[in-house]
């Protein structure tokens, strides 16, 4: 029998606003460390932009390196937010409540970081404005709408706008709570952000409706974003392994796998860091793990279908590419690590309730999924370009340069930095949602059944 601890609202407020109102010392320590990494990375980026993309490891014929790998990776991570918030919200899954905010915020930040990658990758940020924001009207020269690289920015910025709104709408009631607990300048700022929230029934109703509407609106966008990212590759007739029809669903489901795993990792971290054991509970992690089993297996199907393409058609170029990806140095060890980390190790493990309920194991197993999924993107992108095709006389393999690796590391640091900054400014678990949940349901779902929960007042 699961126990559900119903906490008094002042306690919820105190717990969840602990960090916002007064951050502990370790928090500032981590912030300083991450800030240092980000500053170091930014200096390297500046050096790269100054000297040229020659400082990367890209060369003929591998023109896209780990910056694009990382770009796809972060776009993938960003699929967690909507997946959880929107789908779970629409399906009224009660256990979603503590997870939504973190997932949405992760979406926004990972999208922002993802969008930075192509900017650095192109090497001259001052030149790329008319790519995303065509301004050259006077000459009748528009961007080339046939290019997926034009679809990309529109998809990403739509998704970014939508998910930012999503976060803001959900934040409003909480802003009001903070507003009422702060003084001075902070009070003024939170007042503005609370947008005059008084908690009237009409306001609550509007807030809920807005949440539902945004969810419904964002779902197609979420599917389109990674589909479009996949088309960056799928349209390339010049690259055998890319030019396949399954890329869109394959990329989307892969993105969901890595995004949801990232949310699991992050929730466990939040639970540990902020002591939110009462909010992020076993049932959450367990439910997410079940979801991941389904998603991961779906993803595996696509993974195999890709190989089937080569085997079924016996097209020599396809087979050569798969050989390169899976059996050729230096890619085969990566391929092995990837398939173990992203499927063979975690997914079967999560079939067992004992594992699902062990927070520690869940933390590590969800983390390795993303290591594996990062390698998956690497193995799609790099060997695809480094293929030993006919007429690739100056063939060579690709090794990322130190600067590229550091830029990738910096991207991680920056996402963490942004998340922690967010955690300082706003509650990472929505206060209102938790309370709403408490009020709406003194029932919990166990298996297929709704049962009364035991309320234990403390």
């Amino acid at each position, binding site marked *: 029998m699961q126990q559900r601890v119903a906490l008094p609202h002042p306690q919820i407020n105190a717990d969840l606003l602990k960090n916002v109102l007064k951050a502990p010392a370790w928090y500032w320590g981590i912030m300083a460390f991450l800030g240092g990494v980000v500053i170091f990375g930014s200096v390297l980026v500046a050096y790269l932009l100054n000297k040229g993309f020659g400082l990367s490891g890209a*060369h*003929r014929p591998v023109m896209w390196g780990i910056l694009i790998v990382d770009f796809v990776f972060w776009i993938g991570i960003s699929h967690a937010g909507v997946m959880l918030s929107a789908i779970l919200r629409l399906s009224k899954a009660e256990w979603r409540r503590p997870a939504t905010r973190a997932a949405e915020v992760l979406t926004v930040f990972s999208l922002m970081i993802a969008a930075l990658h192509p900017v650095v990758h192109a090497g001259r940020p001052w030149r790329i404005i008319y790519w995303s924001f065509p301004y050259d009207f006077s000459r009748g020269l*528009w961007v080339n709408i*046939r290019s997926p*690289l034009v679809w990309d920015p529109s998809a990403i910025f739509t998704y970014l706008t939508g998910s930012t709104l999503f976060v803001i709408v959900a934040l409003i009631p909480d802003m009001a709570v903070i507003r009422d607990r702060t003084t001075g300048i902070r009070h003024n700022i939170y007042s503005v952000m609370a947008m005059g929230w008084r908690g009237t029934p009409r306001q609550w109703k509007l807030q809920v409706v807005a949440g539902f509407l945004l969810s419904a609106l964002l779902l197609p966008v979420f599917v389109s974003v990674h589909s479009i990212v996949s088309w960056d590759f799928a349209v390339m007739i010049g690259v055998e392994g890319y030019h396949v029809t399954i890329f869109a669903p394959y990329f989307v489901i892969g993105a969901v796998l890595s995004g949801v795993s990232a949310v699991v990792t992050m929730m466990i971290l939040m639970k540990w860091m902020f002591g939110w054991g009462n909010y992020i509970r076993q049932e959450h992690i367990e439910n997410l793990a079940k979801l991941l089993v389904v998603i991961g297996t779906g993803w595996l199907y696509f993974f195999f279908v890709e190989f089937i393409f080569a085997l079924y058609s016996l097209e020599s170029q396809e087979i050569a590419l798969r050989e390169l990806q899976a059996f050729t140095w230096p890619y085969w060890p990566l391929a092995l690590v990837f398939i173990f980390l992203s499927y063979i190790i975690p997914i079967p493990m999560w079939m067992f309730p004992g594992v699902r309920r062990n927070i520690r194991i869940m933390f590590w197993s969800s983390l390795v999924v993303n290591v594996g999924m990062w390698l998956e993107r690497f193995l799609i992108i790099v060997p695809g370009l480094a293929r030993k095709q006919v007429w690739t006389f100056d063939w060579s393999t690709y090794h990322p340069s130190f600067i590229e690796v550091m830029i990738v590391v910096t991207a991680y640091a920056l996402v963490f930095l942004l998340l922690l900054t967010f955690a300082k400014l706003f509650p990472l678990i929505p206060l209102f949602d938790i309370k709403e949940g408490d009020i709406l349901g003194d029932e919990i779902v166990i298996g297929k059944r709704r049962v009364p929960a035991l309320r234990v007042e403390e």
Partner: protein
Amino acid sequence: MVSTPRERKWQMVVDADRCTGCQACVIACQAENNIPINSESHFQQKRAFTWIRIERYWEGEFPEVKARFIPFLCQHCDNAPCEPVCPVFATYHNNEGLNVQVYNRCVGTRFCQNNCPYHARYFNFWEPVWPETLRNALNPDVTVRGRGIMEKCTFCVQRIRRGEQDAKREGRDVRDGEFQPACAQACPANVLIFGDVRDPQSRIHEFLAKDRRFRLREELGTETNVIYLSKLDLEAKEVAGHA
């Protein structure tokens, strides 16, 4: 009187059977097109610029070894895979069959190079540097590209334009062979034949009619404007013309 210019379509025939691998075309192209100097590390980094390059493939084992040379340049595909993927129209097709590259629109995504099945595009990973005095040899008809820009064989479009202007000034149509790309002009073995296929009188027809003709990776449907004539070998299995 200058009449409306005729529609032109430029093509090149590459007779692989004549090519000796002498590299004259490579240097001629570098000189004509202000191609950055390839330092040792450009080669080690696999970032050397060779708008035309000579690929050499081995066949057989000692002592029955053979080498095959084949010159490689942008194929000026009519269905060019590099074109639709460029987000900013920095590479596009003109109505003369040329795949053209607009350097100052290029934002450096390198998408086009990934999608070129012929690996004919070259990216300026570095700002090109010339020792000051060597800059004197730069061709004023050709832009010096900067860092972050994609470049490739242009079929020496500056020579085409100059030829057209000269013809226009003299009130006549361009004459076949009055100009040719730098590589074709240099090539001592006359491997590279350039011409306007819409001109029924042009010499290129003589070569296009040969039964040794083939296109590279024809199965992709890229409709290249560079047509190869196959290499002949006494010990090959098939007989030319009966393939």
